[in-house]
């Protein structure tokens, strides 16, 4: 089992933000995490990697690649991080360091990963590996992109760079936290296709977070529906879509169907 979360809760002082959440993810598996804004999706992802912001505490048990994450000091986790899971964040603007070229930002995790694999790469070889990754996420003109600063790129391009940075870690699990929410519909579709392809090629597991049921449906096999920090429903995509059990899921599905109908009516 790649990721095993067992009755994980996240608290801010007395306030419970995620409660008793259990979930497992096998190698190569794709799971969607759905819920409205503020339902605790991002916190779940951060808890899974042990990266909750200070002030928040997790309880329960999280095994990532066999390593306990909850209550383990950073020094221990630093050594195993990167190989276990990598995250692509929601907000393409704050996902990249504004003062560092894109090439440098991809080179950083790439060099670290190579070092930890026991085969450090530097200089031209590192540069080539960076360009290769940029090419992998279907960005044109690798050399120009590598020299560019984040503000010189479009939102979609930035998100591709963020994906390249995640890939540089060669993670077993890719966590995509609403990677397309800030993008327009066309770009959104392109990024989804890209993630789909990369996950397949590299045989990564995928935890795909979204508030949008249809977006997830084509990308993942299983979904978990989150509401106010609680998992209200889990199952395969078709189960949840066709026989939603919980009222909240029903309303989500109905909204998705209305949206689909509206889209068809328009074209």
């Amino acid at each position, binding site marked *: 089992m790649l990721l095993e979360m067992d009755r994980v809760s996240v608290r801010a002082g007395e306030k419970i933000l995620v409660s008793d959440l259990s979930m497992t993810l096998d190698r190569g598996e794709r799971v969607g995490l759905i819920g409205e804004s503020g339902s605790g999706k991002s916190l779940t992802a951060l808890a899974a990697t042990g990266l909750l912001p200070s002030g928040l505490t997790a309880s329960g048990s999280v095994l990532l690649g066999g390593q306990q994450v909850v209550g383990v000091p950073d020094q221990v986790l630093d050594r195993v991080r*990167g*190989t276990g899971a990598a995250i692509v*964040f929601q907000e393409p603007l704050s996902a*990249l*360091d*504004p*003062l*560092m070229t894109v090439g440098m930002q991809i080179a950083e995790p790439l060099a670290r990963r190579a070092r930890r694999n026991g085969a450090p790469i530097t200089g031209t070889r590192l540069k080539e590996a960076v360009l290769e990754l940029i090419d992998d996420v279907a960005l044109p003109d690798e050399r120009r992109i590598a020299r560019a600063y984040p503000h010189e790129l479009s939102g979609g391009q930035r998100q591709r760079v963020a994906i390249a940075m*995640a890939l540089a870690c060669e993670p077993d699990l890719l966590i995509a936290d609403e990677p397309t929410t800030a993008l327009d519909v066309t770009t959104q579709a392109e990024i989804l296709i890209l993630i789909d392809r990369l996950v397949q090629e590299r045989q990564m597991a995928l935890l795909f977070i979204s508030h949008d049921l249809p977006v997830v449906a084509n990308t993942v096999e299983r979904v978990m529906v989150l509401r106010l920090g609680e998992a209200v429903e889990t199952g395969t995509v078709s189960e949840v879509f066709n026989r939603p059990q919980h009222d909240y899921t029903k309303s989500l599905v109905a909204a998705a169907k209305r949206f689909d109908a509206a889209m068809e009516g328009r074209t």
Partner: protein
Amino acid sequence: MTITQVGSPSRGRRHSVALRAGALLVGMHVFVGLLTLVWLPYDPNAFTGGRLEGASLQHMVGTDRLGRDLFTQLMIGSRIALQVGTGAVAVGAFIGVTLGILAAFASKWLDDALAATLDILIAFPTLLIAMLVVAASDQASLWSAILALGIALSAIVARLTRILAKRVLVMDYITAARTSGSSWPKIVFIHVLPNIWPTLSVNFALQFGLAVIAEASLSYLGLGAPPPNASWGRILQEAQGTVYTAPLGAIAPGIALVSLAIGVNLLADGLRERVDDRLGDR
């Protein structure tokens, strides 16, 4: 979009004026300060003219009450002001940035305690803190003045660093670096310091101006560098008794001090606008 395009050229011109004027004034002092290391018009301690002479070809701003050349002393004053400004900012930056970064990482109560301490320290005038530090060291010297001013400035730097660092630390690229296994020290040097540096450097320029003025005040009070270091503050103080008979002795160091302070502030202003332009891109 149109607004930025119309607005930015005039903005660009304005900041280049402040920057250039500042660089010119500061550059002048730097030039003079460096020159004193290799050449001086007179021996600053030799009695080379009559007492309290007015301006003449031999003595451009006259002589002091012992007949020493004032212009020579002013030139040395430039070097001392720059030394103290640079030294104090370096000391203040080192202590302040270190403390600020540590506070940004500290646990909640330690951070709160540090923040409160800094707020209290900042409420005291820089000069007062510097005076206390000088008083605590057994002998006033150039170095004790630098150390004292540096310590006095460090609280302001620490508070600013703490706030700026906290703002950077919540960014997703920090979490992304954490996920990929980057350690905290590495993140501080690669991401945090570069991102807070533009804003900090503007602040350092302002602190430099503060330090130069505070050093003159210390010297004026007799707590600065002792003779033979001809600090502007001491020249001013020595000229005080004879200000009606020989006003030049007081006016000249005043002008020197003000020109450097204004120069540094203009430079800071120009720098700030550059930083704003750059951060505006985000």
